[in-house]
């Protein structure tokens, strides 16, 4: 019970710290939102001659945009930890290592959730998307975002410690998240009324991915934080 409290305390401190830094600097926000909206707009331009294709591909385009934008948020999240010897301070801080991981995940989750709301509005306007099942869409979004953030927090730290890490992050992360992209797209398609049936199965699969990435990340974060 004490260990759980330590983990929760560390997660709360790290998440609050990360969100405070982002609120203060707005670096990720200034990069992420314009980038994501621009990608949505470019997809709309590219597929506009056939609005049927655009409507068919709405969910896939939405989640692809979220994935690409998540890479920016993850890189920013770890750039903060690697400057001025802060990672050493964090390692010496006495904070629970799984708690540090969960705090990073939570802060990324909040940023991506805000992004998804804005992107959702963009999709509704640009792609003329009609919403069918709210509950399913929310559950799919929560589970997919958790999976993206958990894998991102683990791989973000790994990539940040490698030479050429910022270039490597998308190459390492995006293949790992391909199953999340597929499941989130299929689940969202059902929620948007593009497909019938099976939506909750895709949501459950996303839940499994999220739990697996959270578990693996929490277990591996200590070795990842240590110097090799």
């Amino acid at each position: 019970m004490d260990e759980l409290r330590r983990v929760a305390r560390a997660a709360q401190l790290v998440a609050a710290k990360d969100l405070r830094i982002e609120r203060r600097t707005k670096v990720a926000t200034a990069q992420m939102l314009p980038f994501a909206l621009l990608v949505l707009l470019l997809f709309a331009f590219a597929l506009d001659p056939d609005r049927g294709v655009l409507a068919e591909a709405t969910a896939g385009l939405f989640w692809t945009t979220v994935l690409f934008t998540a890479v920016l948020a993850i890189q920013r999240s770890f750039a903060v930890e690697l400057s001025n010897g802060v990672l050493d301070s964090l390692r010496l801080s006495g904070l629970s290592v799984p708690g540090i991981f969960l705090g990073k995940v939570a802060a990324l989750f909040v940023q991506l959730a805000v992004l998804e709301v804005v992107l959702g509005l963009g999709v509704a306007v640009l792609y003329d998307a009609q919403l069918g099942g709210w509950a399913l869409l929310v559950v799919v979004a929560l589970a997919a975002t958790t999976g993206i953030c958990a894998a991102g927090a683990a791989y973000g730290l790994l990539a940040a410690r490698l030479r050429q890490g910022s270039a490597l992050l998308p190459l390492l992360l995006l293949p790992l998240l391909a199953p999340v992209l597929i499941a989130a797209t299929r689940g969202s398609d059902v929620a948007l009324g593009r497909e019938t049936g099976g939506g909750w199965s895709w949501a459950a699969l996303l839940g499994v991915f999220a739990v697996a990435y959270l578990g693996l990340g929490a277990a591996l974060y200590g070795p990842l934080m240590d110097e090799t």
Partner: protein
Amino acid sequence: MTHHDPPEATQPPTVAMRDVVVLLGRFPALAGFDLEVARGEVVLLSGPNGAGKTTVLRTCAGLAAPVSGEASVLGLDLHTQRSAVRRRVGMVGHASGLYEELSVLENMDFFAGACGASGTEARAALERLGVATRLGDVPVGALSSGQKRRVSFAAMLVRRPELWLLDEPHSGLDQAGRDLVDGLLSEAAGAGATVLFASHELDRAEGVSHRSVVVTAGMAGESGG
């Protein structure tokens, strides 16, 4: 050279290293390094640039892993118990170790909260380091290097470490700051903490240490005391 008298060694050493090898990449930063530091001792590491002083400090902090040799800090094995070591030591290195985007107080509250200390203790540590109250809301990135150094010390002090590891502790500080650091080192030893620090300012550093160890090419050389 005017070293202080060392405390009597009646307890197991705080730092015990024998034939320790630490690699930086494939380069042996420490090659067969030996060091023993008793509880309450203030020990100066001196030596040329690149000799391995910083690696000694990082190894003692549990931040760098020895690949061979016997190494323990506070009775904990540096091969297998580095995370436990990290919870009990404090380090002020070359870099500030602070979040430049956050204010002085936000940094202090974060690091105090991390070790279970209160906001009051964090503010007391800042006061002890002579950091003016008006600087509390200033982002660390806007501070001078000397002011950052003081805040880094305060962030270490609030953790009440049993072993202080300091890399060039006087660097970047004005005369008052240097005197303050000297006072802190003496107080730490008086309170039972152990201090291991690296410095190139030998006249000043030897005045506040019990003995010195010369590090040359990753090996410990002759000791003065």
